[in-house]
């Protein structure tokens, strides 16, 4: 008789139990997959930050503006490679709830600083640089709003007012950019800072923040200190940090809520695994008598050990992989609607690998003890017990 056949028979002898066990594992990994993906999407900004990019913001708080003249002074600091600046536009399309991540940027330097992240065909790049009213739009944003190259689009600002009295600007879509990495956020649009500056009714020569690249990441700290020292006791003091530190600080603002939620969910995940493990171990213990019979029949102990272990591993994998698959389906389905808030929603291989590890662990831990018992089982005591 084939071992696999025996394992199959053992597994399916109580179909209801098999189903319930697999279902519980399924649920556990469904939630694990979905919640871990959510968490990594929240952290994505940190992982994607380039290590030689620094962000300069107002020391009071990053929502306070900086004078535009600061950009030139920053460029003069030794070791600074490229400098660009931007302002938050607070965009929305047609309705205030339809928010758009829109920034007014200095186009040429912006594309230089983000040359690795923003992929834009050369002719679109030239078109954008040549048209002040032009904007470039991220692929996923363009898809969401149905915008195509050449479209004239009205975008309103929740912060600024147009000179003409309204809050709406007319832009022309000159380019649609993609990200070099699927986790790169393409849910944003960029407009010319100059056009913005000339058409707004207030705000004058102020920018939101400065982004710069350093020639050598090892010099980051020195350069950051040089910038901040240079602006000490000036009109607006600055706070310079690496892009990574900046994103991290921003995400920490969401606060301990995230931590509490993930804590609670992971606790639940492990509890379900313990519960399931307990039942699986019980199921093997119930079969002590049968294992004794197998041994009597001459099955070598290691073979029985392997069979028991394979069974629990199989159950863990069936439930777990199905759960992970379902989580993937849900994430793929939610991607479109969630893109506005969480652009980096992706169940990547890292998460899948982690889940797989937990499945193997579950199978091993729940199988090992009963399997060892089976291995060491003394036939006579087993029969006496039954």
């Amino acid at each position, binding site marked *: 008789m084939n071992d696999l056949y025996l394992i199959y028979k053992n597994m399916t002898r109580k179909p*209801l*139990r098999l189903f*319930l*066990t697999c*279902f*519980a594992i*399924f*649920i*556990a990994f*469904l*939630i694990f997959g979905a*919640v871990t993906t959510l968490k990594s999407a929240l952290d994505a900004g940190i992982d994607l930050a380039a290590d030689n990019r620094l962000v300069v913001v*107002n*020391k*009071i*708080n990053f*929502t*306070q503006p900086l004078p535009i003249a600061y950009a030139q002074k920053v460029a003069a600091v030794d070791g600074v490679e490229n400098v660009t600046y931007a302002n938050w536009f*607070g965009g*929305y399309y047609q309705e*205030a*709830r339809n928010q758009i991540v829109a920034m007014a940027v200095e186009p040429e330097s912006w594309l230089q600083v983000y040359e690795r992240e923003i992929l834009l065909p050369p002719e679109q790049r030239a078109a954008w640089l040549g048209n002040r009213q032009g904007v470039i739009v991220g692929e996923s944003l363009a898809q969401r709003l149905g915008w195509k190259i050449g479209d004239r689009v009205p975008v*309103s*600002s*929740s*912060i600024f*007012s147009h000179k003409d009295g309204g*809050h709406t600007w007319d832009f022309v879509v000159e380019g649609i950019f993609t990200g070099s990495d699927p986790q790169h956020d393409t849910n944003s649009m960029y407009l010319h800072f100059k056009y913005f500056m000339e058409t707004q009714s*207030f705000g004058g020569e102020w920018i939101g923040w400065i982004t710069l690249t350093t020639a050598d990441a090892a010099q980051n700290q020195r350069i950051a200190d040089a910038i901040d020292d240079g602006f000490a*006791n000036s*009109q*607006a*003091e600055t706070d310079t940090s690496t892009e990574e530190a900046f994103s991290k*600080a921003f995400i*920490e*603002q*969401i*606060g*301990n*809520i995230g931590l*509490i*939620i993930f804590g*609670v*969910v992971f*606790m*639940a995940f492990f*509890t*379900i695994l*313990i*519960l*399931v493990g*307990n*039942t699986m171990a*019980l*199921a093997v213990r*119930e079969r002590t008598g049968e294992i004794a019979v197998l041994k009597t029949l001459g099955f070598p102990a290691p073979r029985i050990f392997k069979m028991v272990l394979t069974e629990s591993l199989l159950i863990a994998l069936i439930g777990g992989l199905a759960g992970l698959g379902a989580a993937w389906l849900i994430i793929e389905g939610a991607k479109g609607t969630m893109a506005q808030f969480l652009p980096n929603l992706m169940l990547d291989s890292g998460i899948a690998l982690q889940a797989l590890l937990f499945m193997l662990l579950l199978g091993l831990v729940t199988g090992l003890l009963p399997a060892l018992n089976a291995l060491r089982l003394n036939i006579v005591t087993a029969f006496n017990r039954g």
Partner: protein
Amino acid sequence: MRSLFSQVSAVTVMNIRSLPRRLWMSLAMVLASAVVVAILLAFLAMAKGFEATMSGAGSDAVALMMREGSQAELNSVISRDQVNLVEEAPGIARDAEGPLVSPELYVIVDGIKKSTGSKANIPLRGLDKRGMAMRGNMQLLEGRMFTPGTNEMIVGSGILREFDGFQLGNEIRFGKNMWTVVGVFSTGGNVFESELWADAKMIQSHYNRGSSYQTIRAQLENPGDLEPLTAYFDTESQLNLELKTEADYFAEQGKQLQYMAIFGRVISFIMALGALAGALNTMYTSVADRAKEIATLRTLGFSNFSAFCGTIAEALVLAIAGGLLGSLAAFLFFDGMNASTLGGSFTQVVFSFEMSPDLFVQGAVLALLIGFVSGFFPAWRAARMPVIVAFRNAA
């Protein structure tokens, strides 16, 4: 009837007294329901606490005006001229000093969070006496009011709880300006407690705001009645302001955490399914273990119904024990837990988890549900299995 009742109770008592014998399985069942209940309560307590913080802030008697399309106080810009026009508006309450209108500024500054030591956004609100009077439940806990025209501020008690360095008497530097904390205020636990308050004119000058403001609050003559104001706004083309009651504004701002609560419910529901599968498994195994016992009882003349009830009662007892355990754990860990998160205005909202009695009721209902479902099917099977089969299988 009496015999049926005594049969049921006899079987129930027997089942429950034999629970220690099936210690591990019973514990598994208890754990399953405890976890589900704890998760549900944690999410609900969070939502409840946040909601209380938000809804307590909004008054129906106060109208809030922002620039059209701004959605949050932070984004809005309002000119002095517009403030003057609003002061002329009908439908606004007046006292001896004139209309009860409070133009306010809203600036974000950094604070250091106690829990993580990291920077977080907190709002510095510029207002005057009128504005404070409009927060009906505002009271000074310590110190005194700030003196207009100076760099003095008063801090909300929520800020004191979550952030370092805002104690009474401290000097705080925001950019080039030093501020002195002269008072600590409470607004009865609502969102205003997560703010710093100072003189509006000082903030205008320190933050290059000229004579502009961000929002206007106005005490309404008749609470909830925006009609006269709306009509007036329609005739004044300069007043392209969004008008809503403060209560409505905060209700909207509170929405985002409601999504968290929905997310929590969905997660605990799905988790409940998983735990239910575990519990069902346990009960099935537990009943199968005792197939012979149950068959013996039935041979002795106990009815199927009493066997059924006994099993269900067992599951219910275990689930309720789990529910209690889960509620207790949730209460110990989460009740009163301070948390803060980024609110709709891009600033930290400090709030506490709040475990109210109605949450416990929801937890108890969930525990009972788990107990009932996980007991019902195994009990049904046990009661219907022919006695002969039971004896043969168990042998």
